[in-house]
């Protein structure tokens, strides 16, 4: 029985370990040319009894990693009563060799939590020179597309139609769900021309159960702004190639190419999508194409060096400024309105002798409408008179290029300035010092120096705040202590007064004597009743003599005839003796 049970337990345990941890590298081909692509797969099969702590991926020296995707799956199986659990992780690389030669890739290493390390196999590749054209051709914006055929470029037309264009080869790789990128304009992008890049997710019904953003695209050589970031995906339906898809906007960006680079590049957007059923879930990486769009200079750029892209108009708010009657400063604003390259548009004021023109306050309001970046940009210059006289800010010229209009120039009007009032400083320091001061050994005399430590952290502030608080606490403690003592003495004197009243109202000498004994005991803690005279002298000393004398007198009076005749006098004496004991009076 025991043996059978042990064998059964061993088999159950063994069945869980039927799949030991395994790591393997595979490639779709081993011989290729420079510029070709190969797909390398790293498969990891995990043992249920141990977990992976770290995966060291292989070194891809001499290769460019064009894409990397990860997927994992887990499955339970009951085969002939044995339960098996398998967990697989697959990392897929798309590699492009950089030069000719024979190269090895691998091994990859996995380290388990138990400390065990497992290495994969190593693969060898033979790369020959020349070969097919690189996939990322200038002018083609689907540069991440693995097939990169010319037909794919033709199907991607500009504008709204391209949203419903037939699937490209890249999109066909995962035809149930894919990310489509719409770039507008797709090609012939001029330097400074705003470009919108929109990412859409297309999915067939029930093909994915969940998704999250793994990596958002980042763009190089451009000024970029994220225009739309939907918090919730709003799906609409579309029919592409006879198949019905649900599609939703993921992100929308505005890009404006900078002044130097010949192309705009953007990395892929990568999503993690969950597919499959509850017991058989798969996590897959879904990536879009990378953006690679050629940017060309404006026509005859050498003759129009400062021209910017856009269709604009310019307005100014003033043609004349008078600085008089205490008004030392004024402003002049220029507003450029239209559509185009707002980021690159600048208004440079020339130096005008006699007036100081400060750097402008710039306000820009622009948004994308109908795939155009339109709005206005206002430059507000503050002008100050340096010396009295009449001056003029000359007319400014801005050159722009538009696809329809070609080159055109906007001109402002000159601004006449009459400076009657100038600041005293302005008259003395007309020319701005353009010479730098060097290392100083000591501070100039008479300069006010301020402390930069936050006010609430300064010791003097803390001390100044602590003093009244401490005074308050100490005073309160003293007041409390004094009240407590007063209370105590008040209580004692209250009790004494009570006994005095009783002594004065004693009905007879016996009652008087008894009251006297009780009062001494309660108020002064002196217990005389039943105590022998010898013991009294020993315990209390001579201070108690008046009390003992009075007691003797009272006792004699009690037993004598006509005792109550002395009652009044003895009451008075008793009260006096009671008060005098221990300095009560």
């Amino acid at each position, binding site marked *: 029985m025991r043996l059978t049970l042990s064998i059964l337990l061993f088999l159950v345990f063994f069945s869980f370990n039927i799949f030991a941890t395994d790591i393997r590298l595979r490639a779709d081909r081993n011989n290729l040319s420079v510029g070709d692509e190969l797909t390398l797969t790293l498969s990891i099969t995990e043992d249920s009894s141990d977990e992976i702590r770290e995966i060291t991926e292989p070194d891809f020296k001499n290769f460019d990693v064009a894409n990397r995707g990860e997927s994992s799956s887990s499955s339970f199986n009951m085969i002939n009563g044995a339960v098996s659990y398998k967990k697989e992780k697959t990392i897929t690389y798309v590699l492009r060799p950089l030069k000719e030669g024979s190269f090895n890739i691998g091994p990859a290493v996995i380290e388990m939590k138990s400390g065990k390390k497992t290495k994969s196999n190593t693969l060898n590749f033979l790369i020959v020179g020349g070969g097919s054209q690189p996939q990322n051709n200038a002018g083609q914006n689907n540069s991440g597309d693995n097939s990169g055929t010319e037909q794919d470029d033709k199907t991607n037309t500009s504008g709204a139609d391209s949203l419903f264009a037939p699937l490209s080869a890249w999109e066909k790789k995962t035809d149930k769900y894919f990310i489509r990128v719409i770039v507008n304009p797709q090609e012939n992008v001029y330097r400074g021309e705003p470009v919108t890049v929109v990412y859409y997710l297309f999915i067939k019904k029930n093909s994915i159960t969940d998704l999250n953003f793994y990596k958002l695209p980042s763009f190089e050589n451009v000024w970029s702004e994220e225009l739309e970031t939907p918090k919730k995906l709003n799906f609409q339906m579309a029919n592409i190639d006879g198949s019905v898809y649900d599609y939703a906007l993921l992100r929308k960006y505005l890009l404006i190419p900078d002044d130097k680079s010949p192309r705009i590049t953007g990395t892929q957007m990568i999503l993690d999508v969950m597919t499959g059923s509850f017991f058989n879930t798969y996590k897959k990486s879904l990536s879009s194409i990378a953006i690679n769009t050629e940017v060309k200079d404006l026509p005859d750029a050498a003759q129009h060096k400062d021209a910017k892209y856009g269709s604009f108009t310019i307005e100014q708010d003033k043609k004349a400024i008078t600085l008089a009657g205490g008004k030392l400063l004024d402003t002049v604003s220029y507003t450029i309105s239209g559509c185009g390259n707002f980021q690159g548009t600048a208004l440079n004021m020339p130096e005008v002798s006699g007036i100081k023109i400060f750097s402008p306050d710039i306000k820009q309001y622009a948004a994308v409408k109908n795939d155009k970046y339109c709005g206005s940009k206002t430059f507000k210059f503050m002008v100050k008179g340096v010396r009295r006289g009449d001056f003029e800010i000359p007319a400014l010229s801005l050159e722009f290029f538009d696809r329809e209009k070609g080159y055109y120039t906007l001109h402002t009007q000159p601004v006449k300035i009459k400076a009657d009032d100038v600041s005293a400083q302005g008259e003395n320091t007309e020319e701005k010092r353009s010479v730098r001061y*060097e290392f100083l050994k000591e501070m*100039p005399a008479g300069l006010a*120096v301020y402390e930069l430590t936050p006010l609430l952290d300064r010791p003097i502030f803390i001390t100044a705040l602590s003093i009244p608080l401490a005074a308050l606490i100490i005073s309160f403690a003293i007041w409390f202590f004094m009240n407590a003592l007063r209370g105590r003495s008040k209580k004692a004197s209250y009790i004494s007064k009570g006994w005095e009243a009783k002594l004065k109202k004693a009905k007879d000498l016996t009652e008087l004597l008894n009251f006297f004994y009780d009062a001494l005991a309660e108020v002064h803690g002196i217990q005389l009743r039943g105590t022998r005279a010898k013991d009294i002298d020993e315990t209390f000393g001579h201070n108690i003599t008046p009390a003992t004398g009075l007691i003797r007198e009272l006792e004699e009076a009690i037993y004598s005839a006509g005792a109550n005749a002395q009652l009044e006098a003895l009451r008075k004496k008793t009260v006096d003796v009671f008060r005098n004991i221990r300095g009560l009076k």
Partner: protein
Amino acid sequence: MRSITAFIIFCLLPLFLFADTALESFVKKDYKAAENTLISELVKKGGDDPLLLYNLGVTCEKQNEKGLAAYYYLQSIQAAPGFTEARNNLDIILKEEGLKVPKILMEEGDGPLYTVILFFVFLYIFVAALIVYMFRPGWKLRVSLLPAFMLMLLFTVLFFIKYRDFRAESYAVTIVSRELKSGPDEALSTVGKIKAGEILEIKNISGDWVKAKSFQDNIEGWANSSDLRFVARKFN
């Protein structure tokens, strides 16, 4: 072993005894050493010394670190608003780089902190009245306590509102040209670029990341705080 240690210490001793001052290093054009000396002196003095800050700016300019130089000049001006040399050098950098600086950072100091003074005056009056009332209760003192308390409360509120507004307006200088991101993560998309020397208004801080608005083009985005230097301002 002991003799070897003593020998090493003896050899290194001149380095400590005869280390160059910042000025000497500057004159010898060893700007890095000058910078290090100035920084250690600045740390000892608590970071408030406008002269050290100014000289650090000059030293950084010599090493073509315009962003850091702008920061030091600006910080020097915060400590000594009338420091013409620092203003002049900062102005030159701003003009060369086409940068703007908010007016609030270039304002001259305007004298004593009246709200702070009045806050303390009424605080002391109230506490004194309260203490006297504890030991000598009387109707006159009782009547005077309420207005003293109200005035103390008023100036406390005024002071803390002013202080809160002061702390809310914080600024930083970019020391390295970087991109502004849409969120506190390097992987997120870029919303703009900031160049060295550019001044940012700080809107929010999250860990190592700071949400800031650029004065150049009013673009708001996130930057790593290691690329910025925060400007400490005096409380006016």
